[in-house]
């Protein structure tokens, strides 16, 4: 007979036994990876790959980090969660991955159908009981469209709540990436819609 146990469930079990004595949550500071994995909420891949047909070219004019403390996302179950050392590169790298959501990011304004400015308003993590949550909010200002009027600036929010198994690197990283992915999914859909009108 073979039993397949989710390792996270096993960890939760061990924690439930041990936590009253010592606590087994990792509380050492976590520095997020500077590479962004968009897989957690990746949209229709076929549609996203069909970039050439859609030719929705987007130029990211400015990316402004407006957070009160850009070095941190806060503390999760006693564990500081920090942004990567090269914060600017990290954020650019995240939003370049809009490529995965059916648009083509271009460096040249003149070749772009839509030009946007992104402000990162907040990015924070919190936890309660056995849960952990990440919230990221950006405001997108549409600066220029080749045809038609610019829509009003719009807020995009990515929020992910999940079980805090052991406060580990991977699960926190996945949660933050998942919150970004939700933003990209909605922003990508709006940009594709703008391109097609």
């Amino acid at each position, binding site marked *: 007979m073979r039993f397949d146990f989710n390792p996270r469930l096993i960890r*939760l*079990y061990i924690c439930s036994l041990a936590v009253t004595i010592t606590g087994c949550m990792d509380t050492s500071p976590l520095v997020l990876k500077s590479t962004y994995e968009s897989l957690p909420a990746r949209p229709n891949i076929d549609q996203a790959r069909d970039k050439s047909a859609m030719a929705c070219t987007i130029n990211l004019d400015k990316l402004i980090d407006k957070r*009160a403390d850009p070095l941190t996302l806060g503390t999760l179950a006693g564990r*500081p969660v920090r942004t990567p050392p090269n914060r600017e590169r990290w954020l650019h790298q995240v939003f370049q991955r809009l490529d995965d959501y059916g648009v083509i990011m271009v460096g040249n304004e003149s070749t772009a159908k839509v030009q946007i400015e992104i402000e990162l308003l907040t990015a924070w993590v919190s936890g*309660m009981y056995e849960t952990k949550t990440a919230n990221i909010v950006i405001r997108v200002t549409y600066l220029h469209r080749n045809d038609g009027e610019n829509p009003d600036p719009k807020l995009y*929010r990515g929020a992910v709540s999940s079980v805090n198994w052991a406060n580990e690197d991977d699960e926190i990283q996945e949660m933050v990436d998942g919150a970004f992915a939700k933003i990209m999914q909605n922003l990508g859909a709006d940009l594709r819609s703008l391109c097609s009108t």
Partner: protein
Amino acid sequence: MVIVKCRWSALPPIAMLLAGCISVPNHSLTPLQREIEGGREVEVSVAQGEIKTNINSSGLAAVTGGGFLAAAIDASIEVHRAKLAESYAKPLRDALIEYDFDSKAQETTKRALTELSWLRSTDYSFVKEVSAENRSAKLDATNSKQMIFVDYEYELSVEFDAIEVNILVAIADKKIPSGYVPTGRLNPKNLVYQRWINVIIPLSNPSSVAEENVKRWAADDALLARQALNTSLESAYWMIKKSLSQFPEEERSIRKSKKIDLSQYHIKSQTYSGRVIEQKDNASLLLLTWPDDKWVLLFNPIG
């Protein structure tokens, strides 16, 4: 002292039981304790990006005596509740996105502490990341003999029928007490002073549906929520001053006074029963000693 909310942690009530509820020596400063050479450095924190939500704990593991299955079910129920709360809070958070709680908290703290000239507050700093290690490092680095930490938290109640602002004011020694590791300076019993303050602004005639309540807080560009937060911070200003100014004999006198029960206000099924510190037209300031030892300023419902 690192912002583990008392009501979320089993430790402070247990510690209080062991120590005895009447003996709380670090809830007021004696005239001798007030004087200090070189002033006190101040650190203010707001360790959140937006208004927090609250959920009830599932508690199945506690009822069933623990175990793997109960813990897994607890976790699953709590995540479901957290997801719902997060989705309900979205319109309010969006409406408050330009509300700069962080700056207002800093301004409130500075205004309150500088008016207490004997406190000799100096070198104000602000952080979003609060941990025992960071705090301890700050104590190592400071030129002051003591530091003042003022931590703010703002949140929605579980049913979204109230907005609460929680403040912890603490004074810690730079000197490490003997027998402790450096973070032991932040252990509640080693603090020179500590006071939990809880400002509660209930919503009038709340619905039993959380989503309906949050719509009211969020309406008109979060008019009611802004009013609640502004009022809470304005109250924080005078309560911080009042609590730090209180002498031990005043504290003892309040603790000996008769409890009153403000049963007309039920929030999250809690009845606020405590000793009256001050009564205002629109609010009552109570000392609650159970389950947490804190000051609670309970406002009349708004909206």
